[in-house]
């Protein structure tokens, strides 16, 4: 595995840390969240899934990616194949060999104020 593919696996592994999938995460090295965020914006994931991974839409709803519970291999498949109207990020698309989904920039903010708004 070259360092670029390792970067992809590592970055995707950050998802697994966030989701708490113990079986995989026990062997996953720490990834580069900053680079992950940069790539996430650079290749256009944010246009449908939001800058914070909060989700959005294209022709169909684009799910939230923050704290996704998808296993690593399924996530890779979605990226490479692109379901429904999602563009496919094949390995020939520039910069996608290291495409990450870092959880730290998708992490939800915490706080009490927003709860008041929804308590209605």
């Amino acid at each position, binding site marked *: 595995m070259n360092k670029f593919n390792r970067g992809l696996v590592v970055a995707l592994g950050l998802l697994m840390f966030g989701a708490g999938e113990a079986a995989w995460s026990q062997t996953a090295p720490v990834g580069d969240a900053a680079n992950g965020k940069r790539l996430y914006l650079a*290749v*256009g994931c*944010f*246009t*449908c899934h*939001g*800058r*914070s*991974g*909060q*989700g*959005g*839409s*294209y*022709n*169909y*709803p*684009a799910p*939230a990616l*923050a704290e996704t519970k998808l296993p690593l291999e399924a996530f890779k498949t979605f990226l490479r194949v*692109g*379901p*429904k*109207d999602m*563009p*496919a*990020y*094949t390995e*020939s*698309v*520039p*910069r996608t060999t290291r495409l990450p989904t870092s959880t730290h920039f*998708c992490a*939800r*903010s915490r*706080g009490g104020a*927003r709860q008041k*708004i*929804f308590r*209605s």
Partner: protein
Amino acid sequence: MRKKFLNQSIVSRRDFLKGVTLTGAAALTTPALSARAQQSPTREPAKVVPQPNLAAETQPSPKDPATQSSSGGDFMAEVLNTLDIDYLAMNCASSFRGLHEAIINHTRNKPEILTCPHEEIAVSMAQGYAKIEGKPMAMICHGVVGLQHATMAIYNSWCDRVPVYIMIGNIVEADKRAPGAEWVHSAIDPAALVRDFVKWDDQPASLQHFAESAVRAYKVAMTPPMAPVLLSLDAELQENPIADRDRLRIPKLAKVVPPVGDSGAIAEAAKLLVAAQNPVVICDRMSRTPAGMARLMELAETLQCAVVDQAGRMNFPSRHPLNQGARRGAVVGQADVVLAIEMNDLWGSLNSFSDRIVRSSRPNFKPGTKIITLGSRDLYMKANYQDFGRFNEVDLAIAGDGEASLPALTEQVKRLTDANRKSAFEARGKKLAEAHHAAREQAKADATIGWDASPITTARMCAELYAQIKAEDWSLVGNGIRITWPNRLWNFDKSYRWNGGSGGAGIGYTAPASTGAALANKKHGRISVAIQGDGDLMFVPGTLWTAAHHRIPILYVVHNNRAYHQEYMYLQAMANRHSRGITNAHIGTTLTDPNIDYATVAKGFGVYGEGPITDPKDLGPALKRAVAVVKRGEPALVDVVTDPR
């Protein structure tokens, strides 16, 4: 010398005035005309060429009068005032100056004229207004270039199945057209431009013809399936004196009764629904009146079935436990009977389409699912424009107005429901309610992702907005790109909480349609709010002036992602296919460099404006100030820089 000259001047003026006193208007002719009159004192009056296709009252007088005591336009205005039309939106034009003057003076600005800087604004205002008010607004424009401007908005109204009462001016007779504009703005058949997407049109040849066609047009527009109608008004007919007013009669407008589905078919549908294990009701443009929502609730609660509201109208309360809009994929996938009420795109609701190099699709429903349609679309459609959507085979097609047919269907369902079925229904309803509440809790959690981010998330924007309006009698009259957060989290519990979309996805709908809806809401004291796309607003920014001029209370919240973002995403998809990356996808799709300052644009049009807001902490206070302006009866705009979706 000078004094003599002056004395001669004074004497000449006095003589001139004396001449006017004795001979009246004739003395005011110019010297040249007077000279010509002196040269040929016995000149015969100009011959009047009879017009074989027009009635007697359109014949101009053989003399050359300067005033008249009656006009066709006056009669036309009287006819319009019998039709329960309160407003006439227009961009003024010479071709209907006759009717325009009659309305402002003869019927004293009734219907009330709404001044619009673009014909598209006028039609879209009428479209939004009709959906709240339940009756049409009239719209009038120039017959050629004005109608050309209006076409996209007319198409939206057609696709949305909304009645708009359109009139255009035209000059039928060639010898009555002045050189220049009157020729390039006349046509033999001006309505041909829009005939594929209006329900009915006419070009009356006489005033009695106009009276009958005007009443017929209203009736046709308002009979489901509703749609725009058009009358072409000859300028001579509008402007010339009426020969004999006593010969003219305005027909009575009878009450419009919508068609109801066949009783046998309704009984069959009821049987299928009662026997089903997982019936699902999907609806789109069902609610025609405030009664619609209550009727659907009664059916759904009797069956305890899942309801998916496609939100072409305000069909079903968002927080009703049977509302399964957030789980439409799951409920359709499990359905054994689907009742589709007033659906525009049934195929799109039941199938998923894959936009890839080889386009493909797959059904979302199980094999063997029974599909019932109930709606008026099958009663009337046209061929050229493909707004009817892809053909979807069904098991039972009931042609009739959805809202009007619901009471009969509910009655049949109740008649067939015994104690056993009722017990099964209750168990089903309980599960659906649990699923609904779980989806709502998930939506609340999802909305907090990126809460403090900048650009501001649409979830945060919608949450802050709702916090400012939820205690008011609010009405969401526009939601440009159909952001889902209001549907997922706000409490849509009344018939006017939501006003549907454009119908034809023609961009430039939201601002004017929302303004028209806000006008309908005004007398009820409702706070009208529109989530307004930035690119969408740029098509029709003049709408803001109309809102200010006519004191229409509405809050425009600009969802400013600084792009035609849908097209940006399309380019992204194309670039990925070619493995070229999105580096250039901003070319032709973004509204930056410079960034448009919508608050300044609004102020320029006389509308209170704030923004651009980039820090989510500033949103609440800005929206609060803007809502205060709207509560005072005026429009306001807040520009919010947001994430794309």
